[in-house]
């Protein structure tokens, strides 16, 4: 049973895709007020891990979320996949309202609560002015924000987002990480996969590093982003200091 303070408990989770082991025996827990950066090189299994946690792909082991009936799970965790798919020319508001589907009964219409959740999500992502715009005609970055707002409107204790800031301009990258931080401060938790270690170091409360199908490090950015880990996992050197303006992480050179 998932306690109030544990939003996700994963133990000995393994995934094999097309006969190839992708993840093997991972274990971790996610509590409240966490902004977890999921980092690792390309193909390390970040997307696979998040999808397996949600039970969207076959896996071995245990995930407290995947164990739930789909309807219950959808009220505990929201998911923003990396593929930014918007099939129909709906308005941004309608798009975000789709996030309320798990909260509606079969024939129930959107209530004031639903509209409020949509309003907050739009505001959080700075999309108030885009409400009536057609989502498919927005730029890639704007679409990403709209889809993130959609996931936020689902109003779940846990949010999983797959590279949500890829393709955003610097201002919106920072703003998005700050939104996640606010969610965490408000008592929720966010798991976000990303490649920008600078933003990860600066905003995340915790980093989980994936390499070769396993978790090689899990903890606060300070303790995780050691020169040896950076070297072994990413094959680069980096500069990482706590400054007056917070932690600064700057990748430097590729190691031969």
């Amino acid at each position, binding site marked *: 049973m998932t306690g109030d303070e544990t939003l996700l408990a994963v133990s000995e989770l393994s995934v094999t895709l097309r006969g190839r082991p992708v993840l093997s025996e991972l274990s971790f827990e996610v509590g409240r007020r966490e902004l977890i950066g999921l980092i690792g090189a390309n193909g390390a299994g970040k997307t696979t891990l998040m999808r397996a946690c*949600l039970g969207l792909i076959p896996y071995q082991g245990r995930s407290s979320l995947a164990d739930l009936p*789909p309807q219950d799970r959808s009220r505990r965790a929201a998911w923003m*996949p990396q593929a930014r798919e918007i*099939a129909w020319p*709906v308005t941004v508001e309608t798009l975000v309202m*789709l996030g309320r589907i798990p909260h509606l009964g079969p024939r129930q219409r959107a209530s004031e609560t639903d509209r409020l959740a949509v309003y907050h999500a739009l505001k959080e992502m700075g999309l108030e002015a885009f409400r009536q715009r057609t989502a498919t005609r927005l730029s890639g970055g704007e679409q990403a924000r709209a889809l993130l707002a959609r996931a936020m409107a689902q109003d779940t204790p846990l949010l999983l987002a797959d590279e949500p800031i890829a393709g955003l301009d610097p201002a919106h990258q920072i703003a998005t990480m700050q939104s996640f931080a606010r969610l965490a401060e408000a008592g929720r938790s966010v798991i976000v996969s990303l490649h920008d270690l600078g933003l990860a170091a600066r905003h995340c409360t915790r980093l989980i590093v994936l390499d070769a199908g396993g978790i090689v490090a899990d903890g606060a950015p300070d303790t995780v982003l050691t020169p040896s880990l950076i070297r072994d996992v990413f094959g680069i050197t980096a500069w990482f200091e706590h400054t007056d303006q917070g932690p600064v992480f700057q990748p430097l050179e590729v190691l031969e």
Partner: protein
Amino acid sequence: MRGRVFFSGLILAVLVLFTVSLVIGPAQIGPMESLRSLIAGDGGPLTLVMREIRLPRALLALLVGGSLGLAGAAMQGYLRNPLADPGLIGVSGSAALGAVLAIQTGFAAGFALGLPLAALAGALAGVFVVLALAGPRGTSLTLILAGIAISSLTGALISLVLNLSPNPFAANEIVFWMMGSLADRSMTHVWIALPFALLGAVLLASLRRGLDALTLGEDSAAAMGIGLSRLRLTLVFGTACVIGASTAVAGSIGFVGLVVPHILRRWVDARPGRLLGASALGGAAMVLAADIAVRIVVPSKDLKLGVLTALVGAPLFLHMIYRTRREGL
């Protein structure tokens, strides 16, 4: 608010067209007189005409059109592709093949629901093959190619079966099965089609939320608690039910499931769920209008409904293909 006005307008259009359909026919009868004899019923030839000829025809136009519009909207919502029309992707054709086989083997004469059941089985096979070929998100190319292949195959098989029939009329009926008509149908046809059309409509209507969620892709929909394998199953059976029922009694009528959702999409803010009901109404209006038109244009001949729907639908289809190409498929 806008939505309510829009749906009221659609319902009104369907009601008006239904009434017009009742008062139009080769026998010149005054509109008031014909409606009176439909309702009052004096047992005379006029009542016979109204109750046994025009009423079933109007009811079938309603039922067939609603089925085609609904199935088109549902298939498009599921495949997330505006080119998915049950006629174009070969589902109607395979339903027609099932119906033809049932008629020619005597299965249809054997028991009352033999014909729609066989058409349903044919449609089921068609939907299954299309979904298998098109994959989870049908690209336009695979859909169109699958449609061409299935339509050609079923068309050839229908021709073969009808040409092998000992009945000299059978061979000339290829046109009916390919283009569809509502001429000379009776209440019997209404009764055999209605249960399957209703069952299919209930199944497809239950997909509203799921299709809405699919706007964001399969992964997001699944994460929002939508059971995708159940949704797929419901879609396949629901589509087969409505297309099987309508094809069994009216032949295959193309393009309704393409044109109607395309026109109505903007009025429902492109939401696939709301488009279901709107397309069912719009489809009913389109087939009623087409069936009125064939009786006005050439009253003495049985002009096929598919001729009119194709005249409207094919140019639109070409336009949509052109646009799809510009957008890089």
